[in-house]
């Protein structure tokens, strides 16, 4: 708040004039610094419409440093004349004075002095006038008093050329009365207080306006991880669609459940050391449902259940090898086997979202572990059309409406379909998931009834999350190298918008 006295003085001045007044003039007449008046204007503006102030700029003349010196002590030429005694002065001595050089030539051209070049002892200067009129000084004094307007333009320019005057631009305010003009001002309150509320004094008070341009203070809070926010939404979608969550809290799985039970042959490249993490401790699984294991062995090595089989020497040692599961379908297999052991089959819809592991080459979009989203439906008489219909509903909930399906190959589903959606940004079809019907060679050895079809689909959680949050490098999203600022700043997750 500017000095209250000055503010009130200013208001009284504004009251007295009819049109308005210039802040610069006010400063001059009050003999205060212009900045003080500017401060008063600003604080009055903050009060609302007390005054209106319009910024303008004007030019005026000011003395330079040298000009000030002359205004005080006289022009150089005048000082030359004054310093010369009656008997004259050697030119060399005059030239030693600070004002000597300039003063000498000016005084010469004014004919105030004369030079005797042939004087004995060197050239000597004598004054030729007793009284002189120092016009330069007089003019400068006028400007100093703010009466520059009395000088002619030509005179001012001449002084400017001599670097005694300079023209400066001054910003000032043209102050007029505002719609709420008053000469008294009430002090503004910054905040509402409990006392004001109790006494009701807030009714009379004026409050300092808020600066709505500024940012607020960030709340002190924790944040959920973006990938897991997306996981929550996918869980929600499955739950809305009536799917029950599978227990996927078993990262370590036997090759039997991860591969063999899914009719994935033992020489399949996915079972290679290069693709899968094998365990050295605990290296082997030691417990299998024996009659089921026998049926699995048979369907691989000899066929059966309407299948030719793969006709190779199926080895229990391969099936026993423990691995880090390569897909959550291993859990689906356990669940379907469990379902088949029920006395009477009941239709099920299952889902899971959890980690899977691949011993792959890592890059900006691939890590050794990622989250797989999986949906499974088992019932009598399900069709390929049903699978496409359910995928349509699922992806609709993600805001993806245009789908098409490409035939694909997967060892444990037949038919297998890759799901493509039309990407409006990229203007092309992009793969968004995989799907299929589990093979009879997988389902029948489990003991599921003949007519039961199981349809399933899967996708990764990381890819839609990276697209959703515009992240290009997966390491910035998953793992310890995460950028916490990104976590702090990430918005809520609504997959359909």
């Amino acid at each position, binding site marked *: 708040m500017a000095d209250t006295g000055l503010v009130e003085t200013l208001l009284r001045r504004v009251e007295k004039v009819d049109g308005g007044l210039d802040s610069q003039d006010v400063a001059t007449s009050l003999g205060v610094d212009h900045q003080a008046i500017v401060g008063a204007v600003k604080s009055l503006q903050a009060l609302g419409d007390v005054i209106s102030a319009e910024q303008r700029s004007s030019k005026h003349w000011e003395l330079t440093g040298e000009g000030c010196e002359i205004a005080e002590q006289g022009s150089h030429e005048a000082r030359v004349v004054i310093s010369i005694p009656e008997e004259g002065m050697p030119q060399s001595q005059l030239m030693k004075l600070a004002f000597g050089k300039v003063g000498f030539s000016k005084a010469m051209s004014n004919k105030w002095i004369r030079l005797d070049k042939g004087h004995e002892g060197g050239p000597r200067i004598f004054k030729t006038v007793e009284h002189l009129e120092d016009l330069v000084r007089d003019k400068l004094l006028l400007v100093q008093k703010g009466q520059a307007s009395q000088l002619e333009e030509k005179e001012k320019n001449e002084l400017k050329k001599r670097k005694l005057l300079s023209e400066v631009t001054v910003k000032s305010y043209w102050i007029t009365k505002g719609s709420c003009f008053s000469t008294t001002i009430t002090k503004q309150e910054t905040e509402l207080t409990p006392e004001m509320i109790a006494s009701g004094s807030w009714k009379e008070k004026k409050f300092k306006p808020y600066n709505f341009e500024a940012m607020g203070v960030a709340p002190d*809070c*924790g*944040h*959920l*991880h973006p990938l*897991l926010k997306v996981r*929550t939404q996918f*869980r929600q979608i499955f*739950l*809305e*669609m*009536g*799917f*029950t*969550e599978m227990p996927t809290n*078993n990262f*370590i*799985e036997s090759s039997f459940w991860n591969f063999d039970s899914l009719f994935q042959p033992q020489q399949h*490249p996915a079972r290679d050391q290069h693709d899968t993490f094998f*365990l050295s*401790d*605990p*290296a*082997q*699984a*030691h*417990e299998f449902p024996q009659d089921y294991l026998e049926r699995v062995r048979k369907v691989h090595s000899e066929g059966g259940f*309407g*299948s*030719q089989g*793969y*006709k190779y020497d199926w080895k229990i040692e391969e099936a026993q090898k423990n691995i880090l599961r390569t897909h959550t379908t291993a859990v689906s297999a356990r669940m379907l086997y469990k379902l088949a052991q029920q006395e009477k089959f009941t*239709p099920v*819809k299952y889902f899971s979202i959890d*980690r899977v592991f691949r*011993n792959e080459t890592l890059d900006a979009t691939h890590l*050794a*572990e990622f989250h797989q989203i999986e949906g499974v*439906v088992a*019932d009598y008489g399900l*069709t390929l*059309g049903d699978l*496409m219909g*359910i995928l*349509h*509903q699922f992806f609709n909930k993600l805001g993806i409406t245009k789908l*098409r*399906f490409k035939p694909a*190959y997967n*060892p444990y589903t*037949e*038919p297998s379909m890759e799901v493509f959606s039309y990407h409006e940004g990229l203007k092309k079809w992009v793969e968004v998931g995989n799907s299929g*019907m589990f093979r*009879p060679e997988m389902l029948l050895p489990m003991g599921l009834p003949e007519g039961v079809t199981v349809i399933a689909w899967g996708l990764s959680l990381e890819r839609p999350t990276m697209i959703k949050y515009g992240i290009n490098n997966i390491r910035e999203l998953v793992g*310890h190298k*995460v*950028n*916490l*600022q990104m*976590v702090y700043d990430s918005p809520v997750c609504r997959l359909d918008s």
Partner: protein
Amino acid sequence: MPTVSVKRDLLFHALGRTYTDEEFDELCFEFGLELDEITSEKDIISREQGDTKAEGASDVILYKIDVPANRYDLLCLEGLVRGLQVFKQKMEAPRYRRVSPANGEPQRLVITEETAAVRPHAVAAVLRNITFTLERYDSFIELQEKLHQNVCRKRTLIAIGTHDLDTISGPFTYTAKPPGDIRFKPLNQAKEYTAQELMSLYKTDSHLRHYLHIIEDKPVYPVIYDSNGIVLSMPPIINGDHSKISLNTKNVFIECTATDLTKAKIVLDMMVTMFCEYCEEPFTVEEAEVVYPDGRTCLYPELAYRKETLSADFINRKVGISESTEHIAQLLTKMCLRSEVTSDGEQIEVEIPPTRSDVIHACDIMEDAAMAYGFNNIPRTTPRTYTVANQLPLNKLSELLRQDLAAAGFTEALTFALCSQEDIADKLLKNISETRACHISNPKTAEFQVARTTLLSGLLKTVAANRKMPLPLRLFEISDVVLKDETKDVGARNNRRLCAVYYNKSPGFEVIHGLMDRVMQLLEVKPGQGNGYHIQAADDSTFFPGRCAEIFARGKSIGRLGVLHPNVINHFELTMPCSALDIDIEPFL
């Protein structure tokens, strides 16, 4: 998924028409292929080795097409064209026939019992009066390579050898000998080498070194001789130079040696069916006789046609369409599965050709019918399966706790389940043997040596990666660790943990303690002994002595909290004091 690269113009010529890239892409999509890339020899070299190297290379347009891993019949131009032409009903699928040689005496390949120790199976066939052109020859070599990489599992299961029959004379002997006893001039070499010398010669060969391990440690190496003692090949490493085929070769002897006989028969069938169209009598293959150590004989290639009978109803029901029996038979015929409606009009008799080894069940036939119908023409329906959804209680609890931990001012981290031994042991001042950790046998780097036994190291690494963030850092994670557990079928189980850290200029034990109190409040456990929760001083090497407590809830130890040991702070390249909480949440289910 294998990728086949074919010259575009050659492909269009064979297909009898041209396509725009979009049209061809569309055709691929329908047929279950993917036009992966449109490029040229020049583009590829320039991308891999720079523009200067690419100068003068061919700029003929190449289509790179992704083929499903089980469709060995689409791995060369010949197969692709045949598949697409039959699909577009421009031609009928050819019938492949095995024929006897004119003189009635088939080529013989005699297997000796020594092979049993290393690579026991072999099959063979002859392509008689074949005409190669440069393109056909290149395609023939390329198909062998594709088969070697895929169905042959990098030659471990099967190795293919092709020979100019006119340079050798049968009967041939497939035997196995100590490497020092095998000596011949291998393909494209100027002199003879012993098998031993070859193995060291090829140690540095960018291509062949990948196959050496298959026989390297065996006492005997497989080898095939002709009746004059000329070496045809030393499978699965290299052929002899003597019998190599050229553009002028008229008669090709093909042998496949294997550890898996079923796949060897498939591979031989693929080699001959793909290229017998260039024989004087197209689509015929001359048989060869294989004599086993026990005296049995077999004629190859098998070229077996198998019949399956199924109903249109089965296909309609599985796919979700209602097409006539006749129409479904037509659809299957388009997929190279020649089909006829049986005399009663109800059933479809489907003939599976030797090229379609992928068809092993009626469901494979059903898929082909659906593909020929067009997946995207099938009406999308909603199954009427009625079910009630249930959350997994453990995940439900985790979800609820996550929300409240964030509300308590802690930020959620998401760290890796795999890490180094050092992360869970040395860095936390623990001995690896006391961690109950599961160990990975084939990690490519130290980052994947074990499954984590604690969430703490992941959180501390997250703090280390975010040292620039304003203090204090408050982090938590609710996730699984993995512990060895003899009672489980696989010998290990997951354990759901809640871990939190507070990192600031002062240790903030009271902050982490307060968080623990809050968690107990959320879980409806009151302070106190017995049925409540309490903490008591504990010794734990990870924590600063005298600054660690064990947490008991309902009489059971559920975890620890405390101020971390300064050496732990150092090991994770941190500089500030840090307090931590680590509890098992499974007892609260």
